[in-house]
């Protein structure tokens, strides 16, 4: 299991497009992927789940990966957050 904390960087927050990009990326890997924000904990491969978080710019999310390809999954997801989902 690997854990990492990330920050939402893009101005518009995690709206529909970034949410879709995130679940698509996560779905490429076998590992289970969980996101925690405040008291919410959701499945990172579920678009409904990710949208439930309604994560705004500057909010921090705790990510957890568990599975054989957990490190690759983490790297792919973290890079997505670092690039601000390729948005401003």
């Amino acid at each position: 299991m690997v854990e990492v904390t990330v920050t939402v960087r893009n101005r518009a927050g995690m709206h529909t497009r970034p949410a879709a990009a995130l679940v698509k990326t996560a779905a490429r890997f076998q590992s289970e992927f969980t996101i925690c924000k405040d008291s919410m904990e959701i499945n990172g491969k579920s678009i409904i789940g990710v949208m439930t978080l309604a994560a705004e710019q500057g909010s921090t999310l705790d990510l957890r990966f568990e599975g054989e390809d957990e490190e690759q999954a983490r790297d792919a997801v973290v890079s997505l957050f670092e690039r601000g989902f390729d948005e401003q």
Partner: protein
Amino acid sequence: MKADKNRETRKKYITVRSFFEANRERFKLRLLNGDHGFDNQIKDRNLHRPGLALAGYVELFTFDRVQIIGNTEVNYLKSLSQEKRRSAFSKLLEFKIPCIVLTDSNVLEPEMLEEADRKHVPIFGTSFETTKISYFIADFLDDQFAPQIVLHGSFVDVYGIGVLLIGRSGIGKSEIALDLIERGHRLVADDVVNVTRKGEGILMGSGTELVKHFMEIRGLGLIDVRSMFGIRAIRFQKRVEIIVELEDWKPGQEYTRTGLDDETVPVLDVDIPHVRLPIFPGKNVTVITEVIALNYLLRHYGYDAAKELAKRLEGTIAEKKKRGDRAINYFEHDFE
């Protein structure tokens, strides 16, 4: 299935403001003094009647609870001289009380209300009598401080039974839920299910405000069940009664064959019946889910198919010892 203990959440406090705003109409609450102290925190789900504290005994005074002042307290205060009355009330206000609820349309002297305002203790009046309002407030606070957990699954009311479908991502929970909706059952929540323990041994499940009754169907995207299937296809909350765990079929894995061994899984310390369902192409999980719900209903009403057949079998074995051993002894004249 594992429900991680660490994921349980429980509110540490609620503010007097949220208490007031959520209940002002239902509890007929009226603010009697100024709006100071609305950020006071209510940290305890219990209530307190400060009779003894007013009489001067303040040891073990649970001042951090919502204080209920009813007829007894008001009559006691009335029996005192004005000076003593005010000093008894001031003594009460030396403690950090979150708020006071004055029941049964009772009134306090304006000077006392002002004093409470200065000490930042809001006083709410209500026309409800003490026992009734105490019950309402205790029920509300119980709910507010109840432990909660968010589970990943689809939650459907099937024939009035709350069935929570869980399983790995992409196993087809949402598709089964959609199939159930199409057959007339009602969706409570998809993907993100908020489960709250209510009282002892009851779990209530609901969706979240934002994504209520939306669901994702792989390859199709997001759909809104409420606008697509109408009001009959949804409900806002439901007791969680069975957890059906969908699993990939693995040869060699053992599953119950009789249904005699009751399996449960603890969620928020409540044991919920748990059915593990292996799935493979061509298996109609929707119908099986309906049958699981119906079987639960039958058992709830006192009929357990597995036990009934076991009993019949025992009877037949006992009979056989006495009689012949043909499976069916005689076909009456009905050769259709």
